[in-house]
Structure formats: structure tokens, C-alpha cells
């Protein structure tokens, strides 16, 4: 058994993982990041839009402050977030953005003078102030009172990830790419690292670490139509859930993005709508103002996605070989804007659709996009249930997004949480020593080697991992898609339970030698079905509608009974998660109220006097 030891093991080398890594390395600790792909290919790089931080430099951001950002975030979450965490996030935002500028991110800057901007498809002029020249500027994103989304052209995630990975290289952070954590090493109380499969050779290794961070991003790939990269299959959450003690929070809170292109499900940024893009139906009629007179296309993502689905259900979608879709229209933004400011969008349309967005409409439909849920941590990023285990970024349920996150808040979260959690990891490393129990290491290693050996020997059965995955795709989109109801969810849970059992009988059709891709999926498929069950079962039990979780049979947001966070654990041998609940937030800066968009009734929280 090859053993590698380090102070901090980051599972995942995207923005959140690397930001935590840099904090630890900067304080003198050794750090190894594991990554399925070279760090810079992490899905963070695909985030085009930007990062929200209340810098208030641009004219449309004047008067912005962390307080205003806080209100937007809590409203956006449909009061499902932890308000203490949301406060930490908004206060840390401006510092984190400036630090990124210091490290090398080429943020777009304020250009003084008169500019033509778009809001709701209509142009208007505004004058950027001379005294703000050269400071970090911002663009408009949905669900926000001010323009506060910092950006670098259409490649914010890319530019920030490249800067962070440069910094990581400078700090001596090791990245072991093409590796996959297949189990955590733990004794039920303390996490001691991970068992890792090398995706270059297929060999197993043990990584011993005093602190372990899960930063593997979202788990969108349990859905067939997802904007997520193919690596976003929830691997970090699976190994956490498999411990039986770590908890996954709010797994039913899954966000759909309004504008995935059809057929490839590649995301075109919300910046399109922020800059004035509009949504049209089969008659090329702009329908959003009918549903949302005030915000129209700029209402929050869950609202826009739902309204689009609602409109398509009325038969007003555009028929295609790949199912119904709607149109995104950015033609009126003009050549300079499309070719320059929205270049990635332009490239996506030309390269993957063969359409020119300057002259043609873009086929779009709501597509799975973001996982609000994840590994539940406290405000320090420390996982519930296991000492020495941390999480940050999309993989974590920290939880500033509640039941819906705002565009630009998640990308900002990666580096703000990375900065804050990184500080807490450093405190932990400085103050705690971990005892590595060789028995735990050996048992964890042997268990994984045994799984692989049995798989290669064909001892489990002959089920196809691909067939099970496809059946999971079919089931979860019907049961736990944009609109949900008790009947379909019940059916979905039952189907997934059967798939969970079948996934235990997977066999290989190929030889399974080396970095064999079939083996990788075979080792993971049961875990993916478990995540799907956490989503579907959590959604079935939550008999209300909140944020992205929309129950047709329970349309009200029920603050009386459901102002809570779902926590899921998985007991060994079970075929369903065990659900627990905790209050959504311990402190209230803003009591639950109306979001001002999305409609829907609210069953109020019972006040002290009411009881």
C-alpha cells in the first residue's frame, strides 16, 4: 500500500479547494489537492458570469453595501439560508475580490463617461463617475437590487481559477490530478484522509491527512440534462455519505438554469439576460413580463425556470427533435456587445449549434444547474459528524443559498468561503493533532481493494452501470425535476430503491485494467443512486414549496412547519437515507417575508405570542 501524508488534503482543486489550499500553504502547512482532472479544467473554469460583491463602484451599483447584498441573498434563498453564514459571506465579498485583483485577476474596470446599458431589453444611458475610474466594475444579474457582479469579460471563472492555480503553484501546493477519492478514512469520529484511485494507472493509494476538505463541486450529473461538467457526479458527497455519520443538507434544493442550450445543455450565461436579452416563445412573443411584470427575465433563476416550464406546458414552446424549448434573443444587443462582451456565448452558439446569435435566436430550456445542498458544515466549514472533515464551495451546504442561490453568489462563495474556511482549517491544523490509526487505514484500503477485486472477478453480477445510470436519469427528471408532486416523487423513490439494489450487482463488460472508465463508473454508480435518493426522498418529505423546490400539491411556502434544513445520513445496509431536520437559521436579521417575485402564498411562521 502506497501511503502519502500531508497536513491538508483537498478533494477537488477548483476555486474553493484551491482557495482553502492557498490559505493553509500560506501558513506553512503542507497541502495536496486531489483532482479528477488537471486543476485548471475544474468546472469552476466554466462559470462565465461573475462574482457578487458589494463594492458599489459602478454607477448602477451606487449605494450598494453588504447589507443590501445580504437582503438579496436571504430573499433569494427564500429564507432557507443560514443568516449568520449569509452575513459572513456578504461582509467577506469585497475583500475577497480585491485580494483576487492583487493576485492577478484582470477584473473589468470602471470606464468613466456615458455608457449605454440595457435593462429588461431597453437601452438607457448612465454616466460612470470620474473618481471611480479603474476600480472593479460590476454587471447586472438576476435577483439583485444593485449591479454588483464583478466579472472579466465572459470568462470570470476561468480567469479567477487560472490566477488561483498560479498562486497555488507559487505557494507549493501539490496537485495530484487524475485521481479520485473512493472512500474517506475514519473511525466514526475523526477523518484521517482518503483512499484514492489513480486515474492514470488504476492503482489505489492511501492519503493520510490531519484535515480533509471536500470541494468537489455539484452533483448535477445525476441528471441527464445538466449544465455541469461530466466530472460533477457528486464523488465527494458520496464518500462523505458512505461514512454513515457525515450529513448531507437540503439535497432536494436543486436549481435549474433557465438557459441551457438545446441539444447539448451547455449553459449560456445569465449575463445575456442581465445585459438585456429576452425570452421568446413559439410565436416569438416575449412572455416573461406577463408573469413577472416588474423583474421580467431578471427574476431569480427558480422563478424564470418555472415560468418557462409553465409557458411550455401551455403548448407555447418551440417543438424540436430534442423536445420543446424556448428562444433567447440577444440580437438587439448589437455586434460589438455580442462579439466582445458576450464572446463565450457567441462562441458556444457558433461552435455547438452552428447559429449566429447576432442574427438568429438561441434555443434554450431550463436545465439542471446548481446544487444548493451538499455536505452540511457549520459556519466554519467543519462537517457535521466527523472531526477533521471540512467542506467549501458548491459541494458544501454552508449554507448561504438556502433553497435558491442567486447567479454570481455561488462563484463568489467559492473564494469567500475558501478564504473563511481556509482560515478555520489553519486554526484547526495549528491547534489539533490527529492520530492516524493504522487499523482504520488498512481496513479502509482493504475494503476498497476488495470492491475492485470483486468487480474485476465478476463476483457481484452482470448489471450494466450505464443501464442503471440511464434508468436513474429517467426517474429523477420525472420525479424531482422543476415541478414536483407526491405521486411522481413516491414513484421515483421506489424506482431508485430498485436501482440502488441493482447497482450492487454491477459487472464489467471490459477487462477493467488500468485507468478503465467503466470501472470508474461501476465503483460510483451506487453512490450516485444514493445521492438521487437523498434528493427525491427529501423532496417527497418536504411538503411545501420553497425556492427551487416546487411542489404542485403543496404550493405554499410553509414557514410554520418547514423553515428547516433537511439533513440526510445513510446507514450501512439501508436503501433510503435517514432524514433529520434542523432550523434553517439560528439567528434572524430579516424575518421571513415575501420575496417580491415568484408569487405564491406563504403560511407564516408562528410567533411566540401565537403559541
Amino acid at each position, binding site marked *: 500500500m502506497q501511503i502519502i501524508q500531508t497536513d491538508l488534503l483537498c478533494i477537488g482543486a477548483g476555486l474553493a479547494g484551491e482557495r482553502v489550499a492557498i490559505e493553509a500553504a500560506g501558513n506553512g502547512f503542507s497541502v495536496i489537492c486531489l483532482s479528477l*482532472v*488537471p486543476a*485548471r*479544467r475544474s*468546472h469552476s*473554469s*466554466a462559470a462565465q458570469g461573475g462574482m457578487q460583491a458589494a463594492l458599489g463602484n459602478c454607477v448602477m451599483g451606487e449605494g450598494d453595501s453588504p447589507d443590501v447584498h445580504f437582503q438579496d441573498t436571504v430573499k433569494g434563498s427564500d429564507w432557507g439560508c443560514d443568516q449568520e453564514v449569509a452575513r459572513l459571506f456578504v461582509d467577506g465579498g469585497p*475583500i475577497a*475580490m*480585491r485580494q483576487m*485583483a*492583487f*493576485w*492577478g485577476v*484582470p*477584473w*473589468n*474596470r470602471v*470606464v468613466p463617461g456615458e455608457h449605454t446599458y440595457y435593462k429588461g431589453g431597453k437601452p438607457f444611458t448612465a454616466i460612470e463617475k470620474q473618481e471611480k475610474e*479603474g*476600480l*472593479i*466594475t460590476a454587471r447586472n444579474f438576476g435577483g439583485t437590487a444593485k449591479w454588483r457582479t464583478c466579472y*472579466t469579460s465572459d*470568462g470570470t471563472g*476561468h*480567469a479567477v481559477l*487560472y490566477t488561483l492555480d*498560479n*498562486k497555488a*503553484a*507559487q505557494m507549493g501546493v501539490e*496537485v495530484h*490530478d*487524475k485521481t479520485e477519492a473512493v472512500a474517506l478514512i475514519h473511525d466514526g469520529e475523526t477523518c484521517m484522509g482518503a483512499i484514492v484511485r489513480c*486515474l*492514470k494507472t488504476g492503482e489505489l493509494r492511501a492519503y493520510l491527512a490531519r484535515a480533509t476538505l471536500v470541494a468537489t463541486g455539484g452533483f448535477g450529473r445525476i441528471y441527464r440534462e445538466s449544465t455541469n*461538467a*461530466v466530472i460533477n457526479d457528486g464523488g465527494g458527497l458520496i464518500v462523505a455519505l458512505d461514512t454513515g455519520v457525515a450529513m448531507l443538507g437540503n439535497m432536494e434544493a436543486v436549481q435549474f438554469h433557465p438557459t441551457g442550450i438545446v*441539444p*447539448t445543455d*451547455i*449553459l449560456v450565461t445569465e449575463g445575456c439576460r442581465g445585459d438585456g436579452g429576452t425570452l421568446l416563445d413559439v410565436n416569438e412573443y416575449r412572455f416573461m413580463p406577463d408573469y413577472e411584470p416588474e423583474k421580467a427575465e431578471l427574476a431569480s433563476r427558480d422563478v424564470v425556470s418555472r415560468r418557462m416550464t409553465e409557458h411550455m406546458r401551455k403548448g407555447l414552446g418551440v417543438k424540436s*427533435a430534442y423536445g420543446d424549448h424556448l428562444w433567447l434573443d440577444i440580437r438587439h444587443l448589437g455586434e460589438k456587445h455580442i462579439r466582445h462582451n458576450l464572446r*463565450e456565448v457567441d*462562441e*458556444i452558439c457558433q*461552435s*455547438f449549434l*452552428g447559429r449566429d446569435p447576432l442574427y438568429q435566436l438561441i434555443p434554450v430550456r431550463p436545465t439542471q444547474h446548481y446544487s444548493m445542498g451538499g455536505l452540511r458544515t457549520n459556519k466554519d466549514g467543519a462537517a457535521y459528524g466527523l472531526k477533521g472533515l471540512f467542506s467549501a464551495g458548491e459541494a458544501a451546504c454552508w449554507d448561504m443559498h438556502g433553497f435558491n442561490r442567486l447567479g454570481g453568489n455561488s462563484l463568489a462563495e467559492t473564494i469567500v468561503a475558501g478564504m473563511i474556511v481556509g482560515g478555520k482549517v489553519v486554526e484547526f491544523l495549528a491547534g489539533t493533532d490527529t492520530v492516524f490509526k493504522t487499523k482504520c487505514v488498512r481496513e479502509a484500503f482493504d475494503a476498497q481493494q476488495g470492491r475492485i477485486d470483486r468487480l474485476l472477478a465478476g463476483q457481484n453480477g452482470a448489471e450494466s452501470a450505464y443501464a442503471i445510470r440511464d434508468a436513474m436519469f429517467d426517474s429523477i427528471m420525472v420525479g424531482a425535476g422543476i415541478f414536483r408532486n407526491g405521486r411522481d416523487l413516491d414513484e421515483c423513490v421506489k424506482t431508485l430503491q430498485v436501482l440502488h439494489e441493482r447497482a450492487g450487482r454491477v459487472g464489467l*463488460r*471490459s*477487462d*477493467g*485494467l*488500468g*485507468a*478503465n*472508465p*467503466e470501472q470508474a463508473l461501476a465503483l460510483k454508480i451506487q453512490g450516485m443512486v444514493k445521492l438521487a435518493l437523498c434528493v427525491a426522498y427529501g423532496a417527497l418529505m418536504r411538503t411545501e414549496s420553497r425556492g427551487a423546490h416546487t411542489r404542485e400539491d403543496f404550493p405554499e411556502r410553509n414557514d410554520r412547519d418547514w423553515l428547516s434544513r433537511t439533513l440526510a445520513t445513510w446507514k450501512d445496509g439501508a436503501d433510503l437515507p435517514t432524514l433529520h431536520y434542523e432550523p434553517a437559521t439560528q439567528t434572524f436579521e430579516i424575518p421571513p417575508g415575501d420575496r417580491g417575485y415568484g408569487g405564491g402564498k406563504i403560511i407564516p411562521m408562528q410567533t411566540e405570542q401565537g403559541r
Partner: protein
Amino acid sequence: MARTLRFNIFRYNPRNPASVAHMREYSLGETESMTLFIALNRIREEQDPSLQFDFCCRAGICGACAMVVNGKPGLACHTKTKDMPGEISLMPLPFFKLVGDLSVDTGSWFRGMYQKVESWVHTSKTFDPAAEEERMDNELAEKIYELDRCIECGCCVAACGTALMREDFLGAVALNRVARFLIDPRDERTEKEYFDVVGSDDGVFGCMGLLACEDVCPKDIPLQDQLGMLRRKMALAAVRGMLPKFLRKD
């Protein structure tokens, strides 16, 4: 009429002692809007689950899926089958270490490159969390981003004649990286310090000027211009020390 595509794909698994490098043929019915991402996944799932290849974002952003498509390095996710003849040959990128079939190890080479060119902002300042950010002209920010758009797919190095002959050659990607920091005022490195990094045959002076790098760059980064700019600067830096003092322009 839908075509039946014929794929000739390089197969070799270095972890299997019985494996011999060879080309294997697969047939696949073409569907609308098919890209190599869709085609290769269908081949793996329907015909040959051992087939190794790399995709990540499948949207032309991450650079994972570079391979040699009908003789030319490019991103597989970007490649629409309707733009291709009915027979498509796929090979792994040369230059990088083979993992298996179409999958190569770009990560190790690139991490080595970051260290060689010290791919980070060199500054004597420390970050002050209470201070306003340093101002920057928006045009300059956009110029830096232009060069930061590289996705490290490896196509430019795989297509480079010099790199294939001289394994220590930095390649267009590294020279572009140096150019990116050279125009960034936050990086305090002097011309002399840059010269130490790229002013040799492993750097700007090794390039034979074949310029395939720019031809194959999927992001259309003006690699040729960066090379030219660096060469001029480095050549000047090299002779400056030799000139009599009154001729030097510092």
C-alpha cells in the same frame, strides 16, 4: 440521409501487458448536431466500455479533450461531425505522456511549466484587506484577459515541430504566459529576469517559425504576435549589455 460514420481510433492500454498499439475501427450512425463528444461517448457506452478519452466541460472551455482529429490537433467537443468526412481518425496528442487510448497526461507537463516560467504575479507588496484595490485601466485589464484566455489544452505544443525535437522547449503556451505577465503592471519582474526565463533556445530563440501553434489554437490566441514581441524584447535585452553606455536606452 443520415451517414454511417467510420471511426479509426488509436487503442493502447499501457497497463495491460497484452495490449498492443493499434488502430481500431468503429461504425456509428450520425445524428443531428453530433459532436465528437456525443460520438465517443456513444461508442464507449454502446460498443467498447474500455475506451479511454478525456472530456470535462464538453463546452470548449476547459481544454480536456484535445486530440488529433484527422491529423490535426483540436478539441473533440468543438468538432461537429457534419463538418467532417465520413471517415474520422482519432489519435492521442503527441508530446504528452500517454495514459491510454486517446487520454494523455497534460497536467504533469503544465505544472512543470508553471514552475519554469514562474507563472504568477511577482510582487514585493503585501495585500492590505482594508485598502481599496489598485486601479487599472479597463483596456489594459482586457488586454491581459486576452492572453489569459489560454485553456492549456496542449494543442500548440502537440503541433510544434521544435517541441517534438527538443523536449525542454517551453512552447507557445509558456511564451504566451510570459507575455501575459510582462504586460501586467502588477508583476514587478524586470526584463532581465524575463530574459533568464525565456531568452534561450528552450524559449523564444528555439522557435523555428513554423507557427502551427497559432493555426491549431482553439481559442484563436495571437501566439505569433506574442512570440514576436518577446523576441524583440529579449533580443534587445541581450544586446543592451554589449552596447556602449551612450547607446543604451534603459
